[in-house]
C-alpha cells in the first residue's frame, strides 16, 4: 500500500512541478495521509534514521538549516522538510520525496520543523523522536494558533508521553519552555540560552510569560534579553532558570540575539550527537541563511537584506538588528493572508517608538499598508512613503537607495514569498 502511495506522491510532485502549481511540498503527503492515516508511522518503522523535531514560534527554519549544515559537515546524510511544510502533510511529503519506491530512506538524520499546533499530533506518529528542540513561545497569529498558554498546555501533555529514548533540548531563558521539563520522568533534558552580557533592564511590552508557569506568581528577572526571555526566578515557589545552560557557540553566522539562540540550540544538538566543536565551527562559518531569513540579494548595484518579521517579537528583534547594523533604509510589508494571520492588531505591540531617528527612509507596502502607516504615524515617525502596490514600492525603494547602499526589507510571511518572487523573478525595474 505505502509503496503505491509513494509512487503516486512522486508522480503528483513531478506533475505539480511541471505545471508550476508550487513546489509540491504538501500535496503528495496530503494524498498519502487521506488514503492511509498511518502512513507516517509505517514508513518510519521501515527505516532507521534518527529524528530531530524543531518547534517554537520563531527560528525553526534557521535552526533546522544550521543543524543540517553541522551534521553534513560531520559526514552524515541528512534530509529536512521544506520551510513552512511543517504540518503532518508536509512531513509525509518529505518522507515521500526522500524515499525510494521500496519505502526506504537512505539517510542518517531527519530534521523536521513542526508547526506549533502540529507538535502534539506528530508525537502520536513519531512516538519517541531522538531529539526535540523547543526554541521559544511568543504570541503569534492569535486567530490561528490561539493563545500562548493554550499551546504550552497542549505541548506539556504531549511531552508527557515521551520515554528515555528522547533528548529534549529546551530554551532555558523562556520560562514557559523551561517549565515543559517538569513532570517528565525518563527524558534527558539539555538547556541552551544566551550569554547574560546581552541583557537590558526593561521587560518589553510584547512579552507573554512573565508570570510563573508553576504557581502564577510574578517572575523576578535578573536580566532580560528580549520579550520574556532572560534570567528569571520565582520567589514564591523557587522555580528558576535551569543552572547548567549552554550559552556559548564558537561562532555566530547571523546577526541578532534571536540568531544566537538558534545557533546555540544547533551547537548543543551537535554536541549531543557527538560532533566536535571544531567541526561545528567550520560548518557555522560556511553557513548561508535560509530564504528570507537575513537572506542577501543584490539588485542593480544595491544590496537587499530580507528579515522575515511575522509577530511582535520577531518584528522587534528585526528592527533592533537592522538598527544595530546601522541600517537607514527599510521597507515594511504587512499582509493579512492566512499564513500571516488575518488580524493585524499585533503591529501595535511592536515598539516602533524605540527607533525615533534611526531610519532615514521608510517605505511601507502590502495588503494592509495603511494599517502599518497608521502605526508609524502614532509612533511619531514621519519620514515614510506608503505605496500599496508591492512592485511599485520595491521600485521606489530600490531607486532611492544609494549605490552600494542596503535596503532592509521586513515582510510578513506571505509578503516575504511575494518579495522573493519579485526580486528573483526579476519582476522589477
Amino acid at each position: 500500500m505505502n509503496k503505491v502511495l509513494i509512487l503516486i506522491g512522486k508522480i503528483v510532485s513531478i506533475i505539480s512541478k511541471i505545471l508550476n502549481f508550487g513546489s509540491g511540498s504538501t500535496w503528495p503527503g496530503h494524498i498519502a495521509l487521506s488514503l492511509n492515516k498511518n502512513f507516517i508511522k509505517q514508513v518510519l518503522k521501515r527505516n532507521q534514521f534518527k529524528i530531530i523535531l524543531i518547534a517554537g514560534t520563531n527560528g525553526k527554519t534557521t535552526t533546522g538549516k544550521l543543524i543540517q549544515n553541522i551534521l553534513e559537515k560531520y559526514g552524515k546524510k541528512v534530509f529536512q522538510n521544506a520551510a513552512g511544510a511543517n504540518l503532518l502533510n508536509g512531513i509525509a511529503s518529505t518522507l515521500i520525496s526522500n524515499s525510494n519506491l521500496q519505502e526506504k530512506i537512505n539517510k542518517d538524520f531527519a530534521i523536521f520543523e513542526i508547526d506549533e499546533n502540529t507538535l502534539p499530533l506528530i508525537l502520536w506518529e513519531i512516538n519517541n523522536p531522538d531529539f526535540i528542540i523547543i526554541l521559544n513561545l511568543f504570541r503569534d497569529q492569535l486567530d490561528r494558533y490561539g493563545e500562548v498558554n493554550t499551546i504550552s498546555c497542549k505541548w506539556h501533555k504531549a511531552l508527557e508521553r515521551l520515554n528515555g529514548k528522547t533528548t529534549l533540548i529546551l530554551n532555558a531563558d523562556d520560562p514557559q519552555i523551561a517549565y515543559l521539563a517538569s513532570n517528565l520522568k525518563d527524558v534527558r533534558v539539555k538547556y541552551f540560552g544566551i550569554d547574560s552580557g546581552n541583557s537590558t533592564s526593561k521587560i518589553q511590552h510584547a512579552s507573554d510569560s512573565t508570570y510563573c508557569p508553576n504557581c502564577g506568581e510574578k517572575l523576578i528577572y535578573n536580566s532580560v534579553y528580549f520579550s520574556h526571555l532572560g534570567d528569571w526566578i520565582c520567589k514564591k515557589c523557587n522555580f528558576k532558570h535551569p543552572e547548567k545552560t549552554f550559552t556559548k557557540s564558537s561562532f555566530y553566522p547571523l546577526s541578532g540575539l534571536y540568531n544566537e539562540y538558534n545557533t546555540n540550540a544547533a551547537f548543543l544538538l551537535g554536541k549531543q550527537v557527538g560532533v566536535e566543536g571544531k567541526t561545528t565551527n567550520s560548518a557555522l562559518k560556511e553557513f548561508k541563511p535560509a530564504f528570507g531569513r537575513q537572506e542577501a540579494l543584490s539588485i542593480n548595484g544595491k544590496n537587499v537584506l530580507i528579515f522575515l518579521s511575522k509577530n511582535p517579537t520577531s518584528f522587534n528583534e528585526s528592527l533592533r538588528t537592522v538598527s544595530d547594523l546601522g541600517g537607514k533604509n527599510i521597507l515594511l510589508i504587512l499582509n493579512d493572508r492566512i499564513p500571516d494571520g488575518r488580524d493585524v492588531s499585533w503591529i501595535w505591540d511592536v515598539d516602533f517608538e524605540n527607533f525615533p531617528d534611526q531610519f532615514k527612509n521608510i517605505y511601507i507596502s502590502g495588503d494592509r499598508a495603511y494599517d502599518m502607516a497608521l502605526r508609524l504615524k502614532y509612533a511619531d515617525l514621519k519620514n515614510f512613503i506608503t505605496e500599496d502596490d508591492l512592485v511599485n514600492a520595491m521600485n521606489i525603494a530600490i531607486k532611492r537607495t544609494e549605490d552600494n547602499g542596503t535596503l532592509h526589507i521586513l515582510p510578513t510571511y506571505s509578503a516575504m514569498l511575494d518579495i522573493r518572487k519579485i526580486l528573483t523573478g526579476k519582476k522589477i525595474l
Partner: protein
Amino acid sequence: MKYKLIIGWLYPELMSTYGDRGNIITLQKRCEWRGIDFGIKRLDLGFKTQDLKKCDLLLMGGAQDKQQQMVSSDLMKKKDALGEMIENNIPGLYVCGAYQFLGKYYKEANGSKIAGLNIFDLYTENPGANYPRLIGNCISKVLNGEIIVGFENHGGRTYLGKQVEPFGKAIKGFGNNGTDKTEGAVYKNSFGTYLHGPILPKNPEFADLFIKLALQKKYNFSVNLSLLDDSLEKKARESILAKLKLQHNFIG
C-alpha cells in the same frame, strides 16, 4: 485653559494580548496633538482603588484565559469602586475579555460559570469546544450611522439584557453572538466591544468621542476638539472596506 486627562489602563501587563495598547497610544497622541496633557496610570494586579478613582477615563483589553482568571479575583475586590465610576458616567472602553467581565457571568466551554462584575446587563456563554470561535474582520454600524471597523476573535457568545443598548449592528462579521447581529454594548458612557484592530486608531471619530466625553465630565462643559488630519486613518478604513467589498457611501 490647559486641559489634562488621566487614563486608567486596567491590567496592562495581563490584559493586553491583542494589540490593545494601540487604543492607549491613539488617545494619548490625539490629546497631545491638540495640546491636551495626557497621563497614563497603569493599574496592574493589586492596584489601589484610590488610584483608580483619580482617572478621567478607563480602558481595559482582552487576555488569555489563564491571565483572565488572575485578573478576575483581583478585579472582584475593586468591583464597587469600578461600578461607582461607571454609574457616575466616567467614560470607559472595555474590549473583548474586559467586556465579558462587566456582565453577569461567563459560562466556560466546559459548562462552569464564572461570576462577572454584574455592571452591564448581559451574559456570555461559550457553547463548547465543538463550536468555532468567531474570528474575522467585523464592520459595525453604530447609532449615529458611523461605521466602526475592527477584527473580532472570541469563543464566548454575549447576549444583551434590557438595561444596555447594543453599541452597533454587525453588517459584516459575527458581533456579540453571531445570531442577533448586535455588536458590543453601551451603558452610560461605557462602551463594551469585541472589536480589536485595535479599535481606536482606525475609528478616529470614536476615539475623539472618548476624549470629548472625558473632558466634558471632568470640566463640566462641552469642549470643542480641534480638527486633526485624519487622511491616513481614512485610507486605512477605506482599504479594509474595499477588501470586504463594502463601499463607504453604500453603507452610509
